[in-house]
């Protein structure tokens, strides 16, 4: 409730500044322009960031509960693929429906069957992959983006990509849910101590299912946008979003064990990761060095963060 900036967010912002500075230095030297801090470049990064941002927003909901959703990649892809296959407005709704359905299944597996989310969602991911192989192989489905997808994913108004607006709306809704509604409070409660939440008369199963449905719905929305951006849906389109979305949530200060974290941190984490990836790509670093720098930056940030925590404690 206070306006104090949390340490992880602060550290994240510092790192973002560092990345921008490094990138700018690089482009200044190589081509004499300060591309990295030019508005078009930054907007473009936000545009990419939106896909990751929407996915990570959903991921944060389940991480807050102390769970994780490894089915995000193929939930994203399946929503988009089924959506484009159906086509039109019906397709858009179907895509969201696929997201909700996957979330419901994940939620039931985790909350009712009480299979650890780590493994249940992994299985669901494999099943979704199988379903999409079946779909593509059997029916030569259409995969061109629907008009709504194109509108959301690739069009801009006054230079602002609509995806960024979607991300902002998703963020606003989730901030609302987390801070203002009982559901949000219950999510934190379950993340901290499920038994205590249950004994407080919280319908823990429903809350867990809801969180997983939000997560998958976010993945589906990201799928819609991404399909629009790429003009079509394709297999494996979500593969690039799993580990970065987890990393973004954790870099933003959400406890991977659940119960603690602020949404604004996730946004910072997403921007950080997108800019880092972009910088490494632009600097034409070898894949080997890119991976190593990526890993090292994450560790460095977390180390600084945990140092800070150790001192205040």
């Amino acid at each position, binding site marked *: 409730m206070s306006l104090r900036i949390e340490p992880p967010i602060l550290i994240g912002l510092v790192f973002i500044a560092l990345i921008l500075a490094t990138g700018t230095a690089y482009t200044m030297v190589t081509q004499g322009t300060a591309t990295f801090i030019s508005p078009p470049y930054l907007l473009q990064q936000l545009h990419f960031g939106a896909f990751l941002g929407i996915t990570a927003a959903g991921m944060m909901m389940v991480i807050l509960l102390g769970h994780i959703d490894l089915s995000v990649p193929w939930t994203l892809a399946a929503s988009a693929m089924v959506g484009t296959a159906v086509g039109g407005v019906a397709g858009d709704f179907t895509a969201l429906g696929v997201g909700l359905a996957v979330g419901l299944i994940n939620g039931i597996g985790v909350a009712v069957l009480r299979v650890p989310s780590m493994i249940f969602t992994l299985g669901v991911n494999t099943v979704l992959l199988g379903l999409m192989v079946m779909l593509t192989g059997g029916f030569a489905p259409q995969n061109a983006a629907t008009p709504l997808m194109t509108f959301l994913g690739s069009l801009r108004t006054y230079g602002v990509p609509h995806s960024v607006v979607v991300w902002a709306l998703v963020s606003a809704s989730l901030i609302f849910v987390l801070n203002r509604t*009982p559901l949000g409070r219950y999510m*934190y409660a379950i993340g901290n101590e499920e038994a205590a939440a249950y*004994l*407080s008369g919280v*319908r823990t199963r429903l809350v867990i299912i809801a969180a997983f449905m939000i997560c998958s719905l976010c993945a589906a929305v990201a799928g819609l946008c991404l399909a629009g951006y790429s003009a079509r849906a394709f297999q494996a389109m979500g593969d690039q979003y799993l580990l970065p979305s987890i990393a973004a949530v954790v870099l933003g200060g959400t406890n991977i064990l659940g119960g603690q974290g602020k949404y604004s941190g996730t946004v910072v984490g997403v921007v950080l990761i997108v800019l880092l990836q972009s910088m490494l790509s632009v600097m034409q670093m070898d894949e080997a060095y890119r991976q190593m720098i990526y890993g090292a930056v994450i560790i460095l940030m977390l180390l600084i963060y945990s140092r800070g925590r150790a001192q205040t404690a």
Partner: protein
Amino acid sequence: MEDGAMAAEPAYLEMRGISKNYGGVHALTDVDFAARRGSIHAVLGENGAGKSTLIKIVSGVVAPTRGTMSLDGAPATFGSPLEANAAGIVCIFQELSLMPDLSVADNISITDPPRNRLGLIDTRAQRRRAEELLARVGCEDIDPRERLKNLPLSRRQMVEIAKALGRNPKLLILDEATSALTSADVKKVYSILHALREEGLCLLYISHRMHEIEELADTASVFRNGRHIATFAKGAHSDDEIVQMMIGRDWSNVFPKKPERTAAPEPALEVSNLNWAPTLKRLSLSVGKGEIVGIGGLDGQGQRELLLALFGVLRGVSGSIKVNGAPVAIGSPAAAKRPENAIALIPEDRKTEGLLLPMSVAENITIAALPWLTKGLVIDRSAEAEKIREMVARMQIKVGDLDAPVATLSGGNQQKVVIAKWLLTGARIILLNDPTRGIDVGTKQEIYQLLRSLAAEGAAILFYTTDYDELIGCCDRVLILYDGAIVRELAGTEITETNIVASSLNLPGEGAAA
């Protein structure tokens, strides 16, 4: 201070000028403390007085902000419990330090297992050792191979004591180590402690049960608000004086007066033929509006399960439950707390079942009542803040910052938060599972008064406790459970210690003939 007579023998443990701050909280301020070999030294004080903090410093769990400590004349500082252990300091903490997934034997020899020639753990020797130690504390019934998590809390506490004995302590600290034990077990522990004293150990004993202190302690130190108030020999002060030292105010009449009753109260909760095989058998009871009904008996006779069954936690319960005369089916705590049922449960273990430790005091107070504090989909923040303020005032919860994690409160205040949480839901039927465990006399008194005033307002209270004094002092009627069934109902003057003890063992009591 009245320690002139004992100055002859040098202190084994000596602490000088010890202070400990947690942020702005002064848990301990400039404390001087000393304890001798061959004596049992009681540490007394209200909740939050700083007792646990003191022993955490002794046992290396936290480092003091200021001050020095010496052991046997040599300066000592411990960076971790491990280092303190190495120096012969063994502590049984308020929260047990046992590993639920390991076997009892593993737990007992966790740091110093017997080894074979290869340096590997000799499991057979370890098992024998566990058997010996368990026998020493009179718990031959515990199989050392059993996983700890399959034991009830009281047995776990005994395992913890066996584990501590196995470490050959020079200084043994018990921080409310007997809070969940039955009186039979407590007796065994006493005799062990006496034997240890004869062996020349230095023992620190923390408990809120005054009679325990009386029976055990040679010396007592009283703390209040993080300060050392006095140290004196056994018998130097009366109980009332000690309690006054602890709470710093006049103290009399622990239990509020019971109301006189002319007619039977209108029943709020009626249970008949409740079965939950194999633990609960054909239980029938009723609790009237304005009535406090106690549940007694030896530990583990189904009391806990009875409360859970009424609160919708158990599956496969048969029998009928009526609330205000209407039959209800309660399938979950969520159903139990609905306004038409208005049932609340103060659970056994406040740390894992009652509280969300890292969340704020405020959030903990309202977590159960949120459905009533919601407008549309949104939490009504001003109403919420208002209710929290009301509750904090009504329960006299000592809290600095309402947004601070509830974990930072002392045990008694945490328990008040749990009760406040349920009062906020407007519960009319209140189930309590040993709510005063580990709570100081001052706070206990507040809780008794609170229960009585709730009853006076028409609430029905079902109150399980291991403390006979509470059953006698607090309850209008007492139901004694034995092996999952109600063997005796005591009312009015029948509620005496002898009757309770006798019925708990399923023997006819003195009033039975009448």
